[in-house]
């Protein structure tokens, strides 16, 4: 090993590890910083907690009382996410919820979302369907899969899953899987591999 200038191989190795550090450490942090700054601007009319991040376009509107919890994530994609809380309405979103692109969240009277919920792309949640207005309650740890629609007046129990494309018109009990149009619920123990029962 000479003590002069580094060899070509050594230089290449140093550059490669430098690029790796940028990719693994710097870029994600920069993206998150941009996401948080964007959310701060987009949700400027909302009461919101710490670390709310928007990684894509969101159309946000608050004419009522809208509260966002801590560490929410709004992902970006081919369609903007839309969050609207109209006059006199209440919209509460719990901590650590995730929203994929194209989600539409509308509150005309009251929409409550618990903590750690996940909303997949193109999910629609609205407490008004043109005929009636009734409050929607989504409890903790609920996962709503792609394209599902939650109709006014439904309550989704804790830890339940709404499967893709379902139209939920009735309450879903806790620990259930809702599927179909109109959605029917079955016990998650019946279909989930981690089931502990029986």
């Amino acid at each position, binding site marked *: 090993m000479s003590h002069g200038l580094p060899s070509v191989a050594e230089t290449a190795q140093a550059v490669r590890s430098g690029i790796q550090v940028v990719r693994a450490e710097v870029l994600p942090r920069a993206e998150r910083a941009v996401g948080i700054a964007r959310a701060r601007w987009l949700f400027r009319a909302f009461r919101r907690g710490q670390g709310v991040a928007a990684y894509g376009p969101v159309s946000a509107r608050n004419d009522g009382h809208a509260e966002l919890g801590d560490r929410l994530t709004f992902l970006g994609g081919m369609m903007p996410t839309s969050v609207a809380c109209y006059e006199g309405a209440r919209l509460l979103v719990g901590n650590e919820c995730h929203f994929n692109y194209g989600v539409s969240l509308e509150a005309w009277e009251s929409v409550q979302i618990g903590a750690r919920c996940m909303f997949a792309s193109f999910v629609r949640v609205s407490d008004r369907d043109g005929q009636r207005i009734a409050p929607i309650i989504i409890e903790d740890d609920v996962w709503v899969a792609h394209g599902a629609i939650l109709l006014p007046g439904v309550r989704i129990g804790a830890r339940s899953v709404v*499967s893709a494309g379902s139209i939920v018109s009735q309450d879903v*009990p806790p620990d*259930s*899987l809702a*599927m*179909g149009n109109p959605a*029917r*619920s*079955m*016990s998650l*123990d*019946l*279909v*989930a*591999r981690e*089931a502990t*029962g*029986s």
Partner: protein
Amino acid sequence: MSPRETLRAFIVDTFFVDDFGDDDSFLRKGLIDSTGMMELVAFIETEFHIKLDDKELVPENLDSLSRVVAFVTRKQSLSKAS
């Protein structure tokens, strides 16, 4: 055909599974997935003319062939009695 044979034939034809025991768990053996379970429920409702309540869609009633047969028989006798 008895309910057992009807249900077995449906499961074999619909889910392309063969060679499973009457007491094998649909979930644990990976025989039927969640969408399949909804198909099974719809089949039971149309074939045996009974209405299943969402509360009855639990492993105790539907997780193996023998449980489904017992459940269907019980539901049928209940609907006849009423």
